[in-house]
């Protein structure tokens, strides 16, 4: 496989975007990535579009987005990996360049989740597991899936609701500094703890919102990257893993095995350890998911995720700054966009362009952790300057 670099990133404002349709929204990110790289559409040989779909009117978003952005006749695909859909699109574009089949490729992630009513959106996400055995009769929701992990983690390790709320407070603090974030305001611990219960023990402020948004990433081979930019950000390693559709078939509920396995592969390929990572974005669709990620990615010992946030170690200035873009919690989680948004954020951090929320970069390495479903899919990307 050839060396591949991120040479362009684009990002739309995340939030309730009733002002744009899916194509217009995706174009905000595509245009941003083209301008950032200095490339034009005719330079892009392959395009992968990540979108989960169903909540907006277009059934073939890759085709409509590519038409609107004049990206055709490049090779085109649409990818799905639940909430890691954007990472699946990124992976497809990365492998296409790494294999030598294309020199320049683009991954676009886009989601438009607010065109339908909230309870139908909750229904669509709830069906995203083992439909017949866990939804048809039991109506399990996505907060419910993670709530069962929270119950297990709290029961085994003494993790408290306060620990979960601390994650929300941190991510809102950084969301307030991110102009692209859905929620750009700080919250207090009391506010988080007093919010209504969504799926016990998870409350409103433990959950990411339903968001609209898009992000795009342009990838290039080593030779091309050097022609395009002075600040390439290299893909040092990627690890992928999966787990059972049904939650009842999991080996345990205090972590996500897919994360552990994907992390092993990514660290090995990149020849790094968790200690070498300067900054990370992890999949905090729920606050408990961020605590599980601390442990599963090796940023702390198993069972000590609550302590890590309590000590403030995941803030800028701590041992490992995490989700300093606001995370899914405050930045928002447009499912298809998230994976590309994560890569864009780490690229921005490694370039030193993150402004007020810039993490100190010593080793020149960052990590993006994107989970699809409740650890049904996991994609981990390690990037380096």
């Amino acid at each position, binding site marked *: 496989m050839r060396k591949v670099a991120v040479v362009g990133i684009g990002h739309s404002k995340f939030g309730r975007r009733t002002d744009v349709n899916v194509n217009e929204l995706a174009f905000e990110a595509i245009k941003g990535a083209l301008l950032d790289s200095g490339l034009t559409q005719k330079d892009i040989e392959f395009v992968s579009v990540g979108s989960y779909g169903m909540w907006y009117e277009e059934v073939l978003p890759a085709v409509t987005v590519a038409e609107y952005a004049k990206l055709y006749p490049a090779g085109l695909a649409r990818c799905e990996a639940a909430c890691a859909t954007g990472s699946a699109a990124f992976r497809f574009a990365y492998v296409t360049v790494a294999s030598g089949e294309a020199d320049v490729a683009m991954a676009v992630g886009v989601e438009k989740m607010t065109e339908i009513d909230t309870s139908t959106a909750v229904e669509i996400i709830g069906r995203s597991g083992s439909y017949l055995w866990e939804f048809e009769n039991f109506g399990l929701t996505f907060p419910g899936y993670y709530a069962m992990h929270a119950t297990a983690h709290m029961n085994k390790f003494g993790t408290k609701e306060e620990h979960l709320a601390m994650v929300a407070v941190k991510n809102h603090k950084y969301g307030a500094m991110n102009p692209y974030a859905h929620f750009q305001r700080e919250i207090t611990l009391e506010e988080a703890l007093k919010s209504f219960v969504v799926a*016990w023990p998870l409350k409103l402020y433990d959950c990411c919102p339903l968001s609209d948004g898009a992000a795009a990433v342009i990838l290039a081979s080593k030779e091309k990257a050097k022609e395009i930019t002075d600040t390439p950000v290299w893909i040092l390693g990627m690890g992928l893993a999966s787990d059972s559709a049904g939650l009842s078939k999991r080996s345990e509920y205090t972590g996500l095995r897919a994360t552990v396995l994907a992390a092993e592969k990514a660290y090995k390929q990149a020849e790094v350890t968790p200690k070498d990572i300067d900054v990370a974005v992890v999949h905090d669709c729920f606050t408990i998911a961020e605590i599980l990620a601390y442990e599963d990615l090796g940023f702390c010992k198993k069972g000590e995720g609550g302590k890590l946030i309590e000590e403030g170690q995941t803030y800028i200035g701590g041992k490992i700054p995490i989700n300093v873009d606001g995370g899914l919690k405050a930045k928002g989680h447009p499912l298809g966009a998230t994976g590309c948004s994560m890569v864009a954020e780490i690229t921005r951090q490694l370039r030193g362009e993150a402004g007020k929320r810039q993490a100190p970069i010593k080793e020149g390495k960052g990590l993006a952790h994107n989970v699809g479903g409740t650890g049904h899919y996991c994609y981990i990307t390690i990037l380096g300057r």
Partner: protein
Amino acid sequence: MTKAPPPPTLKSARTLTLTYEIPISKTNKFWEGLKENKIFTTRCKKCGELYFPPSSDCPSCLSAEMDWIEISGEAELETFTQIFVRPATFAKYEPYIVAIGRLKEGVRALAWLTGIKREDIQVGMKLKLVGKVGPEGTPTYEFVPL
């Protein structure tokens, strides 16, 4: 200060309704058994692997020769939640408790836990999985405290 009006949208006139007819011919013994409060599941004749929910194939040894066995339903609670924000098709129910229990036979099941208040639930408590006909007239199963 007056708030800006929301951006104009086109409310689509084409509403889509999807109702799936899910094939269950290969697991019908399970669904029929529920109506008589029995929990049947499958075990591979060749390698002995036990499945729950029932599977009509054994992906471990690639055999399609499965035995139907009745299980006790006795289980131990591993984890649970109570769903307050409900999906559209569950809006008519009161907030419900979903639990995962490890069955005595070694496999796990996920189902509603009824007949107990959330405050009284303890991880590790003994449960029983029972079959029944649900309020919508279709067979289902749930955990109850043992």
